């Protein structure tokens, strides 16, 4: 069983006029290897983010199935999908999506708190992760008081909080300057490999993608293996 497995995924959207459909993804199969990093590259607008959202159970495919450890996400209720996202998946997005009223520490603790874990357990794990990413002096800072790179590091810690099997990262360095981007890349790869997680990365940055074990290109609605 794989943490995530996509079978014959097709996604189409209705045209703005309402007549006809726009096909984005056509019969895509994808099965990231456990403990490895997989990148999906492609031009803007090719459907990379849509594919990642479908893989994360956030969006539903028009046809095809997404399996998480053998369970078809399409057959689950919203609350069960939420549970799977909480326990088995971590997300890092370009705009980090931190809760502005929560401190860095609290933001990291959220997934464990949602899972109903005890305060001490949540805090200890969050402190461990924040320490690994060099944020011990930013624990009580609100996201608005952090730099872009720091915010993204907090988002990475949050994604790893419940020790999920797979991390979905959509352009995690897209909004950062080169220096910060490189630092976040390094930290992401270091922590994913030290925690032995599966990484599914979407990026248009070829250098970033090439650091992954496998690289797929999405173009013309199809996925083709470029590396690995």
């Amino acid at each position: 069983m794989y943490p995530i497995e996509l079978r014959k995924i097709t996604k189409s959207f209705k045209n703005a006029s309402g007549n006809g459909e726009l096909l984005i993804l056509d019969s895509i199969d994808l099965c990231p290897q456990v403990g490895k990093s997989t990148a999906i590259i492609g031009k803007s607008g090719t459907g990379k983010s849509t594919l990642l959202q479908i893989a994360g159970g956030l969006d539903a495919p028009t046809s095809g199935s997404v399996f998480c450890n053998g369970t078809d996400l399409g057959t689950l209720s919203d609350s069960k999908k939420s549970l799977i996202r909480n326990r088995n998946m971590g997300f890092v997005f370009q705009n980090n999506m931190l809760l502005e009223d929560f401190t860095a520490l609290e933001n990291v603790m959220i997934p464990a708190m949602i899972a109903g874990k005890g305060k001490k357990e949540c805090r200890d794990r969050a402190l461990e992760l924040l320490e690994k990413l060099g944020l011990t002096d930013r624990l009580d800072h609100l996201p608005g008081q952090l730099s872009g790179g720091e915010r993204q590091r907090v988002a990475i810690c949050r994604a790893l909080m419940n020790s999920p099997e797979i991390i979905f990262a959509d352009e995690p360095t897209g909004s950062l300057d080169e220096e910060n981007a490189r630092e976040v890349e390094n930290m992401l790869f270091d922590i994913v490999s030290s925690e032995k997680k599966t990484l599914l990365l979407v990026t248009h940055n070829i250098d970033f993608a090439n650091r992954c074990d496998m690289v797929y290109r999405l173009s013309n609605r199809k996925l083709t293996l470029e590396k690995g």
Partner: protein
Amino acid sequence: MNPFVALWSRKRILRRGRLTGCMVLIALVTAPLVIALIFSGSMMNGIADRFIYLSDGHVQITGAGNSTIPQDNILCMDETVTGYALMYGASDTASVSLKGVKEDYFNSYRLHYMDLEYLPQEERSGLNRIILSETTSHKLNLKAGDRVALMVVPDTEEGVLRPVMLQVGGIYSCGYEQIDSNLAFIDYTHAQKLFSSRDSRVTEIIAKDSSDTAVRSLASSISTDGRVNTWQSKNSSVYSNFVNSRQMIILILLIIVFIASFFTASSANQIIEDDVQEIAVSKLMGASDRMTRQSAFISIYTVTLTGMFIGLAAGILIGLNLSPILNLLSRSDLINLSYYLLDFSSVVPWRDIILVLAVMTCVSALSILISLRHTRRITPMRLFTGL
């Protein structure tokens, strides 16, 4: 409670802005409601007490020759003689109800409800005295010590109108013009001479326990050859007016409560709209729809209840200190105020307040829950599509 739900609720409550506004508004609605309840309830109690202590007693026995009255629930009992007269001033006349009372009639229980100033002993003439209300003395332009002519209405068929000259031996005020304008006291022995009918003799009884059931029980336990009435039955129109007014006030307050609760619901809606991003992120992290609803409900409901209790406390505080406002009002020349009592002890009508607040609590909870159904439509995809 899930730790995330608790933390998120706390964050929302502590966040300044809309929720604070909501709390202030609820307090501003609750406080006047409580003040209105205290004011109306206390005034009605005050008016009822004045009817009881100065006009009728809790129970009256009219025209009795022999009566057996159980003593266990009696605070005081006074024999009086009642009749009617037309009083002449220099430029006006007044129709008054005369009540013949003994010296000890004005005991501490009654003096609690009236201000009474006697004419000094040395200024008294040989005339029989009459104690007038401030209202009547103003109307007839009389003061203590003045002489006043009355035309006494006979209380028997054989009797004739009888002119009497009296000296104003004191001025009283009970604060309620509807009683003041109609009631004058004369000496008991003099009244007996003016009104000889057996039906003019009234025994007024003030009960220790003034609850409706205790008063009815006292009335029914009296054995007499006269007529026994309670103050409610004698003043049935006044009493039913009180009951109807109280019900109407509570009804109006409940309508206001419903409107306020819908405001809470609309605030809840607005808060959900403002927090769409946060709700979507929390769902992305795996929070269930139930958790997001629970958290929103706890924060909005906590704020509603806090606002309500602040309003309740402020309302009680102001309601129990209405005297300065009432004094100002009583000094004004507003004609309609004559129908109101402006000098009364404030009493918190807990039963009515609890009823109104309970309805407010339930309706708010229900309307917030209904508003929060919308959270189901907020999915993590809102973060990407903005839909």
